[in-house]
């Protein structure tokens, strides 16, 4: 049984087609990154899974159809929506208690306390939600999605506006949940988060799926991307033999294209022979971001 099964899902907003025959599965225990530029259809897809959007096709959460078995399917799903949304009449604690109630969970105090602690909201437990900063509201939304311990967790840009330290702590918490067997589907504009956390990547563009692979296969598909070498050259001059390899220059830091690993030795030899002093050498492998941009440009 898949954690999430999307079969031929199409979504229209009036005459605009936002999702084109989306079809994929996510196995239980996977940590999947859903990537795409703004308007690619990620949020439309997530809203369809969450029951906020009407759509054509079929979506199953842990084997339960989100239309035919609405109550069961939704109880197995926790979603952090992209837009900030909160009840202005409630405090942090009341919000989580009410959310537990909506999911039919009684006596959830211990878990609520743990979530509040782990998401650094303890100081604000009795504060009205209106009084929270944007980052705190975002963390509260994450807490709301986790309050019923759903086996499938969908995070739609959960770290927007969250500062670096707490973002790391949040990922630590989500990572623990993943280790305990929760399936995670994540969208974010911080691609290094996806690169670090996810083992599978689904990429969307203009409402279409343009890639769905494990992270290693995804990166291999972009094998035409080359590594590069950053060198800080002290006198801001570069030998003529290396000019054709320059792909970027910032101040006196030159970025050279590496076609293979032997190029590193060749570049440094040429610099030595030319009596050019250098330091701060940095080899850069192609990142997920490079692969992402490369795939988008291909499309």
């Amino acid at each position, binding site marked *: 049984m898949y954690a999430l099964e999307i079969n031929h899902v199409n979504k229209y*907003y009036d005459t605009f087609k936002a999702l084109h025959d989306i079809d994929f599965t996510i196995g239980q225990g996977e940590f999947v990154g859903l990537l795409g530029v703004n308007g690619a259809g990620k949020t439309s897809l997530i*809203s369809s899974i*969450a*029951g*906020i*959007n*009407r759509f054509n096709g079929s979506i199953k959460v842990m084997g339960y159809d989100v239309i035919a078995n*609405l*109550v*069961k*399917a*939704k*109880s197995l*799903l926790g*979603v952090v*929506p992209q*837009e*900030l*949304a*909160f*009840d*202005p*009449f*409630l405090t942090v604690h*009341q919000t989580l208690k*009410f*959310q537990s*109630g*909506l*999911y*039919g969970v*009684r006596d959830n105090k211990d878990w609520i306390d743990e979530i509040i602690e782990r998401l650094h909201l303890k100081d604000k437990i009795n504060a009205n939600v209106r009084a929270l900063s944007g980052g705190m509201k975002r963390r509260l939304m994450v807490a*709301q999605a986790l309050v019923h311990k759903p086996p499938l967790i969908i995070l739609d840009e959960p770290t927007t506006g969250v500062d670096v330290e707490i973002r790391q702590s949040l990922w630590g918490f989500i990572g623990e949940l993943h280790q305990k067997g929760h399936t995670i589907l994540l969208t974010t504009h911080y691609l290094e988060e996806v690169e670090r956390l996810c083992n599978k990547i689904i990429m969307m563009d203009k409402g279409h799926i343009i890639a769905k692979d494990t992270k290693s296969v995804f990166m291999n598909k972009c094998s035409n991307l080359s590594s590069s070498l950053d060198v800080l050259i002290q006198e801001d001059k570069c030998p003529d033999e290396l000019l054709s390899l320059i792909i970027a220059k910032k101040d006196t830091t030159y970025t050279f294209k590496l076609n293979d690993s032997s190029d590193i030795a060749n570049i440094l030899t040429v610099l030595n022979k030319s009596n050019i002093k250098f330091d701060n050498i940095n080899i850069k492998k192609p990142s997920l971001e490079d692969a992402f941009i490369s795939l988008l440009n291909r499309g």
Partner: protein
Amino acid sequence: MFPYLELVKKEVYRFLSIWLQTLLGPLSTALLYQLIFGHHLAEMQTGIDGVTYNTFLIPGLVIMQVLLNSFGNGSSSIIQSKYTGNIIYILMAPITPFVVYVAYLTASIIRGVLVGVVIYCGIVWFGDNIIPKAPWVLLFFLIIGASITAGLGLIAGIISEKFEQLAGFQSFIMVPLIYLAGIFFNPNNFTNAWQKIVMINPFMYIVDGFRYGCIGYSSYNLTFGVIFVLCSAIIVNIIGYSLIQSGIKLKH
């Protein structure tokens, strides 16, 4: 059942947390109406033998605020949730549209009834004591009447995309229906044409029935009123539930 109770509890908490506006505001309005109309038009004929204008007026004032506040609860809760975006937590929750609708309806009726109790207590406090003559009739028209306006409030909240549209619904539908419901006068005193119009106003039967429950006198056939009001409640709430169930103006 548990999610239903939690949603009702949250909605009741919402209006109780702003009690000055939701409970004392209607009391103040009702007392002012009673002061101005009840005492200054004390000699006005009610069309019912032995019933003074003040006695005639008080049940009308109570049920008027019940109806208005039941309407206001559902409509404001839904449109605020749409504006702040937190309606998605209801839409994403594992509860059926039926449970969602009934929970909002229940909370709206509770607010209407609470407002009615507060106004009744306020009026008694200021010296006018009306002991209900037919409590079961009173309860029927109180709750079923409130369910009609609660349903209308939910419909208005769902279909309105802006506060302006909601205000229009209130100004052009609710207010005329309320003011032509025989709260301040006996509809029998109307001329023929107007009387035919008020005869199809379900609020008129709610007010008339509620007044019967309070003072034991009605201007129209009570059985017909019961049937008319019950049918109106069923129709309004079927429409309201259909809107929630279809997701119109709630889901994309």
